[in-house]
């Protein structure tokens, strides 16, 4: 005889909240799975009335938009939660932020109005900051120039079972020399160029790492120290922004 859970089905979702959070400092080393576990425990501790799916192993109603790779920091990660009881989004932000470790900071929570496009539909690209300790601005500018002049740069990305070819150039909407947000942060002394990179979320996805590989292979960049990569924003490409410096539209705006 197969068993089914006793009792009534779980209460339905009455409110959907969209959340922007960060992965700062050492928290950049969390993987998406690490984050998801920590987030679900934080929900429980904070007492946010999250809705659950039905069945023997009920899951909290959380949907994640594409997560930044392990090792990269982010100022703009997104997810959506479904609540069983309506709550003030500001209160939810405070409660979740308090329950999460320092560095995983909940910076914005807004209510999703019915019939608005989904988070996925409002995100098509990411903007990244890449800090290159040990690389001068001249060296970086030269490499970017060479890279932009190419139509396509195939790079091999190691996967579980071998390699996968990705066109790193095709995914890049814009890349240029930029100014660091926190020029004094980090361990580096000496030159440290900063790149601003905007990449479309294509399939297969092009990651900042792939662009760095391409810059090294095809454009002669050499990086003596591991670069530090931070996602600054996600959203739809702002068609009004200049071709060489793409901007993104706030998906929660």
């Amino acid at each position: 005889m197969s068993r089914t859970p006793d009792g009534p089905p779980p209460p339905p979702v009455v409110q959907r909240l969209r959340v922007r959070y960060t992965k700062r400092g050492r928290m950049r080393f969390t993987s998406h799975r690490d984050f998801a576990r920590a987030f679900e425990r934080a929900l429980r501790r904070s007492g946010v009335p999250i809705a659950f799916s039905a069945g023997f192993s009920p899951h909290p109603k959380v949907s994640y938009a594409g997560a930044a790779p392990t090792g990269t920091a982010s100022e703009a990660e997104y997810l959506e939660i479904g609540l069983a009881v309506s709550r003030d989004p500001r209160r939810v932000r405070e409660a979740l932020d308090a329950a999460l470790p320092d560095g995983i900071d909940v910076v914005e929570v807004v209510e999703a109005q019915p019939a608005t496009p989904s988070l996925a539909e409002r995100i098509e690209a990411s903007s990244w900051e890449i800090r290159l300790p040990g690389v001068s601005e001249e060296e970086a500018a030269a490499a970017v120039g060479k890279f932009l002049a190419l139509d396509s740069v195939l790079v091999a990305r190691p996967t579980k079972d071998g390699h996968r070819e990705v066109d790193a150039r095709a995914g890049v909407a814009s890349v240029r020399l930029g100014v660091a947000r926190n020029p004094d942060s980090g361990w580096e002394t000496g030159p440290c160029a900063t790149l601003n990179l905007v990449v479309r979320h294509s399939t297969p996805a092009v990651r900042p790492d792939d662009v760095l590989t391409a810059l090294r292979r095809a454009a002669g960049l050499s990086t003596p120290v591991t670069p530090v990569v931070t996602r600054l924003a996600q959203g739809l490409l702002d068609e009004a922004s200049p071709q060489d410096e793409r901007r993104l539209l706030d998906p929660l705006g």
Partner: protein
Amino acid sequence: MQGGAGGPYPDQMGGASIFQRLEPLLPAVRKPVQYVGGELHSVVKDWESCQVRWALMYPDAYEVGLPNQGLQILYELLNERDDVLAERTYSVWSDLEALMREHAIPQFTVDAHRPVGDFDLLGVSFATELGYTNLLTALDLAGIPLSAAERDESHPIVVAGGHAAFNPEPIAEFIDVAVLGDGEQAAVAITDLVRDWKAAGRPAGRDGLLVRLATSGVAYVPAFYDVTYLPDGRIQRVVPNRPGVPWRVAKHTVMDLDEWPYPKQPLVPLAETVHERYSVEIFRGCTRGCRFCQAGMITRPVRERSITTVGEMVQRGIAATGFEEVGLLSLSSADHSEIAEIAKGLADRYDGEQVSLSLPSTRVDAFNVTLANELSRNGRRTGLTFAPEGGSERMRKVINKMVTEEDLIRTVATAYGNGWRQVKLYFMCGLPTETDDDVMQIAAMARRVIATGREAAGRRDIRCTVSIGAFVPKPHTPFQWAAQLDHETVDRRLRALKGALTHDREFGRSIGVRYHDGRPSIIEGLLSRGDRRVGAVIRAVWEDGGRFDGWSEHFSFRRWENACTAVFEGQPVSLDWYTTRERDLVEVLPWDHLDAGLDKDWMWQDWQDAISGEEVEDCRWSPCYDCGVCPSMDTEIQVGPTGRQLLPLTVV
């Protein structure tokens, strides 16, 4: 800055974080999150404002070490003291080890990333002897000389604890002290001794501190005992070489667990670990008297935590962590005098709350099934585990596991009848007096389990997994004198068993067999019952690259075998001498001067009773049979029932 190297005392300038140098290396290693710390409830205190500083180590990977209860309890209770600081360190994987060596980064704590070499004490908890090589890696990376004799005042005191500390002789050269038994009060006592010694201006230096630790009886200091050997290789004598040092060092026993309700604020890791749950120890000790079980023998007597304290700890633990699973731990959790009330009370409290309860219990009886039903009230019924341990009735009498075949079949039928689809059965192979036939009887039992189970469940798609481990004789058990079975015979018996089951037409598909090869158990046997001469083998294996020996993919039997051959060349001892040789009553055992409270004559008699298949009852529900522990340790059995109930939680 390499803290400590330049100053007269390490703490005046030590404790500086190495994180800035570590961080750039992390993107290149596997699972870097395990090295960054920052877990919920982790603690970082000011270095200067603390008088005593502990680095606590679990000598295995973070994913295994973080959930360790013993270490979390010490971490929390030491950090609760204003002038004490405790941080954690774990074994680093070889990818990071190589980078740390290349960039001269020392073994660090994950809390504030301080060099382990800067602390006053390095406490290492050994759940298994296979962590010994990892101890050497950590010492070496920390810049602490491997040999205790070469350390000076700038180095931490290396303290070994955990079950393996009941025979620390194989690592006697590498540790300064060993602590036997429960760690709570011992850690506090050691802290006080270190604080006083520092406050007094460190009289007589490092040696002076070790003398204080030894003469107070709080810890065993191997360097203060000389071991001499007979020409045939056996130990002649173990004698203290300092005045005031006790002939025998006794274990610590915490009485009244309700006074020590730890962990209160358990660590919640970001990385995935082997146990993701809030665990409460519902009692300590076990007097069922299974003769192979070291844990049961060295943790006597039974001391229960009351139902009320368990309820409060669970309530606070869930609120503090957000864990979705609660584990009720002990050596045999169904034996708590009020377990039915605890299980029902918790199941009622957390009904509909997405909190699942688990209770590691492998007792073979109907009550265990009832308990499991209660705990899985609204969850899926996947697997239930029972541990008959011995395949034949005769074998079970030898090991004092009093379960008849009829009991077992009835219990398992009940489980299948209650909707459990999968039953796991644990056995051991290589037990004293075992024959081929004893092991083959496991096959007969598994067939009966499936046949009866199909009837009880009314369906054919039930499964039974037979899981078999090789028996390793352990110190402080009645089997401490026994010969370990050679791994060739263990492997042959298990292959025959597996062959019989997989070729069974009627039942083969419903029965799975799981076993590991017997060779790691031989090395575990060497390290369990070894003496000080085994230390050179551990060092040789480590120098040859031995790491993470508890992981089958990193363990190399060849390496250990070769090291034994090289080290024991020209000596009367060998790998076989330490493992497959039976000892007799007059032999001085390497751990005889370490006192778990068990009376040696009682243990010998129990060993003789084992051979003749005579059983012994549990002293919780039959008269005391004088194993010796209670009078010699001044302890007593502490069990309920208290008659109290868990009330529903009021919703806030």
